[in-house]
């Protein structure tokens, strides 16, 4: 489970679950996240689960590093999760006007556009975490022959709805934002809705995502 706990600044615990990124380690992270969230421990004001880390922020006015560390180390972690994970279909259009980095991907992966699109859509993805910008899901895992580094110079503005890939992961830009992932297409679907305060995210950690290719006409008419 947790391999090491250190401090990140003076108001957070940095829990390391191991160097690898895989579903087993990630589900350990999520188990801790759910248990701590349910416990409502005094002083904790934020939890950030990621692939293989959990950051626990606390209010320095109410508690301190040692107190929270002791509580986390003595937690009883529930093995059974009550949360039901969903399977979500995301329509994606890979028209040349939306697939901003297709030329780069063809060159870096040494694959044709057909092959890249074929590999990308023929898969089920697992949601490891959400964040960076509100509601952005980090999905894995891409096949080995689809893995590519981030752009050398990140874009200042990635269009809203862009679907990007880097290394073993895909993500969806829920807002226009700076970003360095390779943009393969765009979804017209709203993945984050701030008016739903209880459940603003369409995709949550543990969910399964399938991408469905749509043509440009369907993309344009999607929200009509």
């Amino acid at each position, binding site marked *: 489970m947790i391999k090491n706990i*250190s401090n*990140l*600044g003076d*108001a957070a615990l940095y829990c390391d679950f191991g160097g690898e990124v895989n579903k087993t380690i990630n589900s350990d992270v999520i188990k801790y996240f759910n248990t701590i969230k349910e416990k409502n421990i005094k002083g904790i004001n934020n939890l950030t689960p990621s692939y293989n880390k959990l*950051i626990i922020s606390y209010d320095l006015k109410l508690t301190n590093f040692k107190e929270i560390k002791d509580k986390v180390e003595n937690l009883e972690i529930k093995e059974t999760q009550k949360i039901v994970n969903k399977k979500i279909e995301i329509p994606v259009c890979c028209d040349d006007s939306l697939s901003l980095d297709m030329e780069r991907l063809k060159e870096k992966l040494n694959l044709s556009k057909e092959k890249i699109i074929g590999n990308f859509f023929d898969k089920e993805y697992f949601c490891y975490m959400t964040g960076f910008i*509100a509601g*952005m899901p980090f999905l894995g895992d891409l096949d080995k022959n689809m893995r590519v580094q981030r752009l050398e110079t990140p874009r200042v503005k990635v269009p809203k709805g862009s679907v990007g890939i880097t290394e073993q992961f895909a993500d969806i830009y829920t807002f226009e934002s700076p970003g360095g992932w390779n943009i393969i297409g765009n979804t017209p679907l709203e993945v984050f809705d701030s008016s739903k*305060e209880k459940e603003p995210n369409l995709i949550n950690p543990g969910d399964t995502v399938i991408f469905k290719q749509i043509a440009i006409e369907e993309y344009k008419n999607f929200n009509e």
Partner: protein
Amino acid sequence: MSNNYFEIIRAGVNTTFQDKGRNNLYHIGIPFSGSMDNRNYLLANKLVGNKLDLPVIEFAYQGPLLKYSGDKINIAITGDVIFEIRKKDNKIEGNCYESYQLENGDEIDILSTNKSVYGYFAVSGEFNLKLQWGSCSINTKANIGSNEGKKLDEGQKINISKLNLNQEKKKINYFNSKVENIRVIKGTNFNYFSEEGIKNFFEKEFTVSKLSDRMGMRLEGPKIENIVSPNIKSEGLLKGVIQVPPDGNPIIMLSDHGTIGGYPKIGVVVSADYDRLVQISSGSKIKFKEIELSDAVTLFKLYEMETQNLISQI
């Protein structure tokens, strides 16, 4: 409709409603937000007799020009701000940390901050605002908060739903100390950087770049050389975390930061220095000093005591 309101004649550079911010939403990608300079936020509310956690107007560099319509109201500005109040037949040069009474038709012109970034404008009453996740704080990147998550704009009206009955004049003597030394605790990827990179980080000066905003403060100066890897597995961020991207120029995460990031963390600004950090204006110098966790906790206690002491003097 409210009978008491301000009309925005000039909006200013980055004028938003802010309060104490939002907690417990990092896991869905929503940052803390809230007032950048927490002490000045609290003092602004106290100076107009409000509860300390009410929304205020935050502005950066240049503030708004507002015209008031309605019953008598007290206002106060905190930070290091140059402003004037224009009444029918006279003009008052305003002082920060002192409340003033506005009458129907008066204008308040918040001209600029003085060698600092953020200032706060509070009124003796409550703004009529929609909250999201219990906070009005506007995050313009995710369009979250009141005013549909957007900056305040020219021509808009700011309605006041409730006025305080008690409007006695309040004042304290307080000056924001300008500090360029910022204390940090070692980051979780400290060993990613070369000996010289670390030496540069703690011994040389950096300049705050123009590209800084509520999301992050970008620094320019000696490059911080990375000898391990330019990326880490993406993981959580906090305000005050200093990331070093491949170009070697550090970025400090501020209140509207992305909640997840993949660049190595060289350090974290201590909580006690956060208010002073955000006030370092673009073009100004900044220097880092390494301290231990236990010292950071002591410094925070002192900072908190001083804040409470100031509040109790009003």
